[in-house]
């Protein structure tokens, strides 16, 4: 399998504090790779580093042949990476339609239209004029994903997309991730719920103290709860 996103020897800091220590990982085309680790291990920082929102002090992030650390943060989405942040980070005062419009503004030629994205989440079609801050948690998550998918990304970064959602909504999010995999979109997923990880991920990368410790097939975790306990503390 060919790597679409490659992180090598990545060092990132928050002020004086080093959060990522030479982190390296590869995301293959059409793959769902899940980052698992304790709170503060560096999972969210890894996603932010890919987006250029946390600058890399050392190391490289390559999208195909393109070095992302050389780009300004606002150029990363145009290169083909979309990001659904933790807590959704919708523009809560804006309407659903305006949030989607923000997503569409950065898309390249031949990328999805608004209608195509709304076909994936039909419930949003009835809420276009509603302020996004007034949507339910599940609808907000759908909007956050719809906004990101407007970019027509090659790589999708999802930070805890099932956080605080009802089981039925979690199933819906899982289906969407699976269907994107079918379309060749590669997904880097940060997720705390082990069940969600096992049902959707192809591989799991364990992050500890800002380093990628082990990467294993997701299917192997069912038979190896000790591994999960070691890095996550549950299992």
């Amino acid at each position, binding site marked *: 399998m060919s790597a679409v996103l490659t992180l090598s020897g990545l060092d990132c800091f928050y002020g004086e504090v080093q959060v990522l220590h030479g982190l390296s990982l590869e995301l293959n085309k059409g793959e769902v790779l899940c980052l698992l680790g304790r709170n503060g291990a560096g999972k969210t920082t890894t996603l932010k580093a890919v987006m250029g929102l946390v600058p890399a002090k050392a190391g490289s992030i390559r999208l195909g042949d393109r070095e992302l650390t050389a780009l300004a943060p606002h150029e990363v989405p145009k290169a083909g990476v979309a990001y659904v942040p933790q807590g959704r980070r919708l523009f809560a005062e804006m309407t659903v339609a305006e949030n989607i419009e923000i997503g569409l*503004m950065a898309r390249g030629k031949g990328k999805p239209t608004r209608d195509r994205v709304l076909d994936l989440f039909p419930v949003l079609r009835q809420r276009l004029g509603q302020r996004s801050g007034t949507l339910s948690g599940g609808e907000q998550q759908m909007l956050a994903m719809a906004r990101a998918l407007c970019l027509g990304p090659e790589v999708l970064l999802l930070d805890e997309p099932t956080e605080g959602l009802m089981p039925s909504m979690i199933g819906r999010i899982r289906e969407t991730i699976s269907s994107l995999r079918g379309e060749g979109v590669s997904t880097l997923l940060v997720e705390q719920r082990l069940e969600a990880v096992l049902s959707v991920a192809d591989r799991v990368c364990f992050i500890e103290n800002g380093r990628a410790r082990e990467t294993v097939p997701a299917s192997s975790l069912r038979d190896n709860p000790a591994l999960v306990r070691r890095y996550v503390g549950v299992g």
Partner: protein
Amino acid sequence: MSFGPHLLLAVLEGLVTSAVLALTALGLSLVFGVMRVVNVAHGEFFMLGAVLAWAISSMVPGYPSLGFLMALLLSPLIVGAVALLAERLVLRRLDYNPEATIVATIGMLYVIQQLALTFYGPEARAVPPPFNFRLQLPWFGYSGYKLSIIAASIVLMLATWFVLTRTRIGLVMRATQYDRETAQAFGIPVDRVYAGVFALGAMLAAVAAVLIVPIQQAHYLMGLDPLLLSFIVVIIGGLGSLRGTVIAALIIGVSDGVISVFFSPTLAKIIATSAVAMVLVFRPQGLFGTAPR
């Protein structure tokens, strides 16, 4: 003059003050709302607009309308360019840090003020109004030019509202205002948005100054009053709220006009600053601002 016409005159004067104040305060409010920068130099962009209006209109003596029109077009553009330069050289290098930019804009205030003193001088200079039409009411005659200031301000405020709420530029500005990081994650070049907003804020102050300078005269210290009043307006209206800015400018402008005419301008300022204190104590986010969550 009996009480009724006297009151009408005071309200009209207050509306002219409100019109200019609303434009000036809107610039300050936009800059704070989008960039979270408290621009202490905002009054100096106002002053620079007035001084440039005098300089530009002086180039075409004998043609006050043409001179004024040129000033109205060129002065805000030049002030906008100065603001862009200041943003690039100072604010961007400070990464728009809220505390550091307050100190930096205090520095900008003195630099612009002293440059004006050096090149323009200490004199107050008048700019002839573009026309001298008087509207004759049954009780008194009133300057048609002053009424045109109110009309121009309304048009500019509506244009700003339209841009902010109905255009793609406005969408980008609002997205940057709500969440800078997420805006970047959706391809919005936040630095360029900030530069544009800072220039736009300064240009609004400059337009207000060009409009007022035929009835107030240009002077290198004239930026201090508009700065103070703009802060009063945006604190009462709610920082970053367009609607709040307009309503607070109306309240402050008209009350200033009426109290100044019937009592004294000093009392008007005392009441306005007391109103700010009350708002800060009982509703710190302002009348139309959103409380931080």
